[in-house]
């Protein structure tokens, strides 16, 4: 026996030495398999001789990977002992025990099962793995006729009958396995057997192919495809061999150390090019993607079984009742919850491909695997003469601003289109950056951040519940998502600080795509500060007011704070599944709330002294074309600092332009169409009831105010901005009404027309609809927020004319609005006013009366 042990061990060492010397994995696995086969033959034969037992009634079968002749150095030998009947099982049992022990002594890890031939006919519903492994059966030793009986007569009919069961079980097991690894191939230290893109994918695809029948439509579309798949299997197998030999056990994790080792050896590299570990890992991901795609194609299939007469009848009836014909001329349509291509020829026009991505992002519907294959074909064949290839910023913006941007960005990345549109992303393609916390490659991490945000439409757990409202109300998602795509691109650049690298990416992308300077500035802010909120949460005392005010100074506006909070939530979440603990999510939210409150409560105290803003003055002066500096200073003096944070120098110059015209007409307005409605900027001298009157005119015209702010400078010039939606599309569909609307506003504010008749005609024309969500009214006063004003915060049910009613109530009680910030969140109105009465704060009696009046007005 000891001689045999030495021989087997020597043979193992020889195989290993050949592998180390450059033998292929395929050859190594074959030799290991031959060694196991030969040893089994010899052992089994010797035992039969010693016990003088005939072989009839017992057969040895190799199953699973061993059955397929893919035996890795430290893998188990899956062996089935097949018996003719129970009697033979009892006879052979002692012999089998001895055989298994001996094999263990020879260093083989035997994983054995025993079944009679009758037992093999029955499907064990709780043991699908056994039946799947049986698909790879191979005769090893013993009674050949018994094996042939099982292989040719017994199993084929029962396996045919069990196809739906095997398919559903394999489908379930595979989906569970992929989910355990986050459904991505892009792990920093992947498991080359179990993780997506690993050898288990190949094995599962192999089984699915057997179960589904070797359908020609599911094979690789060309010999080249088959070769690519074979290369991928060889690559992954070589890694697994190396890992087994290095660890001396069945350990399949491709650690950083083993990545270095593989790169140093140029393991499984066929082109002879020497690569560093990061580049070699890119090869790994390319092969992993091949195996993963192959598996997913099989996994998408439905098993077809002959229908009964009744099923055929109902199926026909259904198809008559619900025809799924897409509209004629459509290039794609949704079928079975996925986008399918209807007109392949049309895809040469890239605008159509891009519109498919836009629809996927809007609808939250994925592209089918076939649709992706068709696009991949079109994209990779230059002779098809693509037109409209360049994606404009407007198109990209539409995708990024949709509810489900990840639904488009994922296939865009898989198809290489994302890198065409955004070459800056190439720097992080399949990039492994070693650190203790990240689990995924940098590109995968970046795409996951976006997917975590889109999941906030229906938050999967309590961690997202609070920030979900920020995502739903976010107006410039495109800028946030664009920042997330680029925020880590610097990690793929030879720079010391990756943030600087990412900002360089932004500069080149913004100039190529044509972002406006305001858009670029917003994205720049998010990238530049993408680590700040997380750092503040972890390294500062967030309950210390100075931490909050310092952080508020960095973000400067509520809009930026909201975007940075969402970005930070997504960035931490996408590090690894455990990174965003409920504890961290709570800390992040606490910092957000404290900073948001700080920003809205410090408005009145934080006023602008124009003479301190030399650079801004110079910019405005340059844009305004020769205006006197003293005039600009007079205009800016005393505005809340938030005014500067919210407007660019160009916008301030435009406001200054309106200010200069006040001498000609006492009311200056600027109406602009926006993405979801209009914005009205209005400059005039302050007067009683001004805010309420403007809100009243807007309500009378059927405009729904979504956001507003009202600021006044030291000279009493009021600058109000209203963002509103045109509920009845009056201004959009009737351009002539724009002029009438502006005249109506000027007439009412100028005292030439009364507001009440306008409001009455609107009230009679509109019927109030019951609210979808009931919001209780809350009226709060804060005495400490400002040295000279009282802060009033009202949260109530949003409705048409609400702001007019509130403004009127304030005016009736002689309250002057110093600053106003109006916001809505779904059906909730959230309004903040800084109030004075007779130039002083509101006393407690006045506050009580105001509270009572507002509660009465708002309900």
């Amino acid at each position, binding site marked *: 026996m000891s001689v045999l042990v030495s021989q087997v061990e020597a043979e193992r060492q020889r195989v290993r030495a050949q592998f180390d010397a450059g033998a292929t994995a395929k050859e190594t696995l074959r030799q290991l398999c031959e060694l196991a086969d030969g040893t089994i033959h010899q052992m089994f034969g010797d035992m039969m001789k010693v016990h003088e037992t005939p072989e009839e009634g017992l057969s040895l079968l190799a199953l699973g990977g061993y059955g397929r002749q893919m035996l890795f150095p430290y893998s188990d030998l899956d062996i089935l002992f097949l018996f003719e009947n129970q009697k033979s099982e009892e006879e052979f049992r002692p012999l089998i025990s001895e055989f298994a022990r001996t094999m263990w002594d020879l260093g083989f890890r035997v994983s054995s099962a025993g079944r009679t031939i009758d037992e093999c006919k029955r499907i064990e519903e709780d043991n699908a793995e056994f039946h799947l492994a049986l698909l790879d059966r191979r005769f090893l030793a013993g009674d050949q006729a018994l094996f042939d009986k099982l292989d040719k007569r017994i199993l084929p009919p029962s396996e045919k009958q069990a196809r739906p069961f095997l398919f559903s079980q394999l489908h379930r097991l595979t989906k569970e396995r992929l989910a355990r690894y986050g459904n991505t191939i892009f792990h920093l230290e992947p498991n080359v057997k179990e993780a997506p893109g690993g050898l288990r994918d190949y094995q599962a695809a192999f089984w699915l192919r057997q179960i589904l029948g070797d359908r020609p439509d599911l094979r690789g579309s060309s010999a080249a495809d088959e070769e690519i798949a074979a290369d991928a299997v060889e690559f992954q197998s070589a890694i697994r061999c190396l890992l087994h030999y290095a660890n001396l056990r069945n350990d399949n994790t491709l650690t950083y150390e083993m990545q270095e080792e593989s790169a140093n050896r140029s393991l499984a590299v066929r082109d002879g090019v020497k690569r560093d570990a990061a580049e070699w890992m890119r090869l790994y991901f390319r092969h992993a993607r091949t195996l993963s795609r192959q598996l997913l194609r099989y996994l998408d299939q439905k098993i077809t079984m002959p229908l009964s007469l009744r099923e055929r009848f109902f199926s026909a009836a259904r198809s008559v009742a619900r025809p799924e014909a897409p509209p004629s001329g459509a290039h794609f349509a949704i079928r079975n919850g996925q986008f399918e291509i209807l007109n392949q020829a049309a895809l040469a026009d890239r605008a159509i491909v891009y519109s498919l991505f836009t629809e996927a992002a809007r609808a939250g519907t994925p592209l089918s695997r076939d649709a992706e294959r068709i696009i991949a074909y079109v994209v990779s064949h230059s002779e098809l003469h693509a037109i409209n290839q360049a994606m404009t910023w407007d198109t990209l913006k539409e995708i990024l601003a949709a509810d489900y941007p990840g639904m488009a960005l994922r296939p865009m990345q898989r198809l290489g289109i994302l890198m065409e549109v955004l070459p800056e992303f190439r720097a992080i393609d399949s990039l492994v950056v070693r650190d203790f916390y990240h689990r995924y490659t940098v590109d995968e991490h970046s795409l996951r951040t976006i997917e975590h945000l889109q999941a906030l439409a229906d938050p999967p757990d309590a961690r997202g519940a609070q920030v979900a409202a920020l995502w739903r109300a976010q107006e410039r998602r495109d800028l946030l998502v664009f920042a997330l795509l680029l925020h880590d691109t610097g990690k793929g650049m030879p720079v010391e600080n990756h943030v600087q690298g990412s900002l360089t990416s932004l500069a080149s992308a913004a100039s190529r795509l044509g972002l406006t300077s305001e858009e670029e500035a917003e994205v720049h802010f998010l990238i530049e500060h993408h680590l700040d909120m997380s750092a503040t949460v972890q390294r500062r005392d967030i309950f210390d007011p100075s931490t909050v005010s310092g952080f508020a100074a960095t973000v400067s506006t509520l809009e930026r704070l909201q975007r940075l909070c969402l970005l930070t939530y997504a960035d931490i979440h996408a590090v690894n599944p455990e990174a965003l603990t409920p504890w961290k999510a709570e800390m992040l939210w606490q910092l957000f709330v404290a900073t948001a409150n700080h920003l809205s409560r410090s408005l009145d105290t934080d006023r602008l002294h124009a003479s301190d803003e030399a650079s801004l003055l110079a910019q405005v002066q340059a844009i305004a074309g020769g205006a006197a500096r003293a005039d600009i200073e007079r205009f800016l003096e005393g505005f809340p600092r938030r005014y500067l944070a919210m407007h660019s120098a160009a916008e301030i110059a435009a406001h200054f332009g309106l200010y200069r015209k006040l001498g000609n007409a006492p009311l200056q307005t600027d109406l602009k169409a926006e993405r979801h409605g209009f914005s009205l900027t209005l400059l005039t001298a302050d007067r009683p009831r001004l805010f309420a009157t403007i809100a009243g005119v807007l309500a009378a015209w059927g405009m729904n105010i979504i956001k507003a702010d009202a600021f006044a400078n030291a000279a009493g010039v009021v600058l109000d901005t209203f963002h509103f939606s045109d509920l009845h599309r009056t201004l959009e569909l009737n351009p002539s009404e724009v002029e009438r609307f502006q005249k109506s506003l000027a007439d009412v504010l100028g005292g030439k027309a009364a507001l009440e008749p306008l409001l009455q005609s609107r009230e009679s024309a509109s019927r109030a609809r019951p609210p979808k969500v009931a*919001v209780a009214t809350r009226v709060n006063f804060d005495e400490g927020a400002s040295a000279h004003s009282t802060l009033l915060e009202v949260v109530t049910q949003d409705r048409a004319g609400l702001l007019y009613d509130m403004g009127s109530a304030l005016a009736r009680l002689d309250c002057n609005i110093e600053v106003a910030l109006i916001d809505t969140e779904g059906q*909730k109105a959230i309004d903040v006013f800084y109030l004075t009465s007779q130039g002083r704060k509101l006393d407690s009696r006045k506050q009580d009366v105001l509270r009572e009046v507002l509660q009465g007005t708002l309900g």
Partner: protein
Amino acid sequence: MMKLEAIIQPSRFESVKDALREVGIEGMTVTEVRGHGRQKGHTEVYRGREYTVDLLPKIKLEMVLPDKLVNTVVDTILKTAKTGKIGDGKIFLSRVEEAIRIRNEERGESAL
């Protein structure tokens, strides 16, 4: 051997960890916890909703130390975790009977 449990401000954690490393402490168990002692919570109102923070976020450090290191470690934590404000946290020490390294069944201080 003594078991040391320290409840500290999250914002001081990085400094405490670095200082402990400098005095030769590499191993510790860190847990994100919530709680309060004399530092009570507070209420924030955001968009009409009240957020009551009655349990404040803290970091709990746990380590078992050979007797000769206890004073050094306690001093290090006191020096680096202290801000002088309510809510700086606490240190608890308790006697440990035995330590056993699971891998090789080593016992006593050498198992630490």
